[in-house]
């Protein structure tokens, strides 16, 4: 073989090696993070950690029960606020591919999706916390709902675009009114995609801390009143991580473990749903 060809082939092999190396080196942080969370997290997780409230400084023990409950309250609240509107807007977009309002909505969704979470936190503060004069779970729910909305709209639109047009035509040809066709034929056939989108958006907001800093704020005590400050797992992690006490640091790892398990299982379920109920015609 010519030296020239050999050099080119060598370059080819080297490049491939570099690509593989870089691709797998970038997974190193992931494994380190998961390793640290599991090692440090499992050590503190026990029944007491899961079911008791945080203790004040100086007392040992305590747990994150209120934070777990708070996170669930925030998820339900933001879901209730954003899911109906998000699905309706997604249906609108799927039905109006062109048009001024459609394009305006599409642009807004792109911008909303890219808006930094801290800015959304400020907005919820100015809209809700300011007028009500108190931090509240409600304002946190609003902030998280604004973050969920674009994801739901986008996935709904994209799923419904995949539903074949002849399904809709068949229903309309049978004399079924348009709104019943949409509700009973088109929406159910896109249900798996929409559900996936909802779960992914829930997974996204479950770990959000920045919008909660000046809305839900955090609370040492148990609270389910949505007009009072409420605790959440990400906020508790932040609070414990920034504290000077080693015991609280280990609590932060424990809470992180719960949070990661929660978000990863949401992601897994979402992917399972989209794989299992994939639209097939």
């Amino acid at each position, binding site marked *: 073989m010519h030296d020239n060809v050999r050099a080119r082939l060598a370059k080819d092999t080297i490049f491939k090696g570099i690509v593989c190396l*870089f691709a797998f080196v970038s997974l190193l942080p992931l494994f380190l993070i998961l390793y*640290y*969370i599991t090692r440090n997290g499992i050590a503190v997780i026990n029944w007491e950690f899961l079911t008791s409230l945080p203790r004040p400084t100086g007392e040992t023990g305590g747990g994150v029960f209120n934070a777990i409950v708070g996170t669930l309250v925030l998820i339900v609240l933001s879901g209730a606020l954003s899911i*109906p509107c998000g699905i*309706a807007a997604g249906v*609108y977009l799927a039905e109006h591919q062109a048009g001024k309002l459609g394009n305006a909505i599409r642009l*807004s969704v792109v911008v909303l999706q*890219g808006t930094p979470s801290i800015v959304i936190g400020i*907005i919820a503060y100015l809209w809700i916390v300011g007028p009500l004069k108190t931090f509240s779970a409600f304002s946190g729910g609003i902030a998280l709902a604004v973050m969920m909305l674009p994801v739901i709209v986008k996935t709904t639109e994209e799923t419904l675009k995949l539903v074949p047009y002849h399904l809709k035509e068949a229903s309309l040809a049978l004399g079924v009114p348009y709104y019943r066709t949409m509700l009973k034929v088109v929406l159910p056939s896109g249900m798996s995609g929409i559900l996936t989108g909802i779960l992914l958006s829930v997974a996204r907001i*479950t770990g959000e801390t920045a919008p909660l800093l000046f809305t839900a704020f955090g609370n040492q005590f148990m609270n389910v009143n949505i007009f009072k400050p409420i605790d959440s797992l990400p906020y508790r992690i932040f609070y414990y991580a920034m504290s000077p006490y080693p015991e609280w640091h280990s609590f932060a790892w424990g809470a992180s473990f719960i949070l990661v398990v929660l978000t990863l299982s949401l992601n897994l379920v979402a992917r399972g749903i989209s794989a299992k109920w994939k639209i097939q015609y």
Partner: protein
Amino acid sequence: MTRSTPNIDRSERTFTVVLAISGGFIVLLLIGIMVTLFFNSLPAIREFGAGFFIGKTWNAAAETFGALPFLVGTLVTSFLALLISVPFSLAIALFLGEYYREGAVSGFLRSAVEVLAGIPSVIYGLWGLFLLMPAVRYIEMKLGVAPQGVGILTSSLILAIMIIPFAASIGREVITFVPGDLKEAAYSLGATRFEVVRNIVVPYARSGIIAGILLSLGRAIGETMAVTMLIGNSNFLPTSIFSPANTMASVIANEFAEATGVTSASLIYLALVLFFVTMLVNIAGTWVIQKLTVESSREVT
């Protein structure tokens, strides 16, 4: 039958109106966000105007506010993070989009990248605090700079890890758009795979890769929690990549809860700037990708 027709008509109309209102609500939400940010930052805009962007002091006690330290902090951390992350995200994109499109290994890599994208930012911050910070402190001691551990370099590293998945997944997508006949033509002329990647794949997917980098830049600029935990929160102009600083997002996270009056307005002014910067970056990135998608679907058909 005749009696139920008006009913159907009414439900029909309600249905379409509800859809349009929900859609319009999203547009209104965005406009509302802009208007709220603008009006609440008015006191600061009036007081400091454009001088806000070149003022070097941020002093709540003296009520003088200049955002230059935070603008510099944001730009330096984001671009440094991009610089660090680009080789890695490009490698993942090429690996998944060109070298191994299918198979167990690429499936594993793809899920791992997805998991990386799904980890909450506060956990990146926590991890950085206990692993990255000592590591950077060690490096600083070796180099003989003040060993603080927190600062621009630490935040850039964590940001780089956080944005790799976004640039990588967009890059993978645009690389798979590269038409097979172009590549096959090059192969038939005797090109090696490296030459195909360098002369066909990357040039063809260039604008999409750049769009992916733009979108991940948007993420880096707006990222709050991990940076807040690792940047060291100093309101002075950073002097080196080891010095502690603050980004626009982190200063808001630190100070907004206790702020009143002009301080609060200045922080909202910062949020307004942050909002517009990320908006421009996102619109530009999305626009490029959309154009690419349309073009490639046209070529297929």
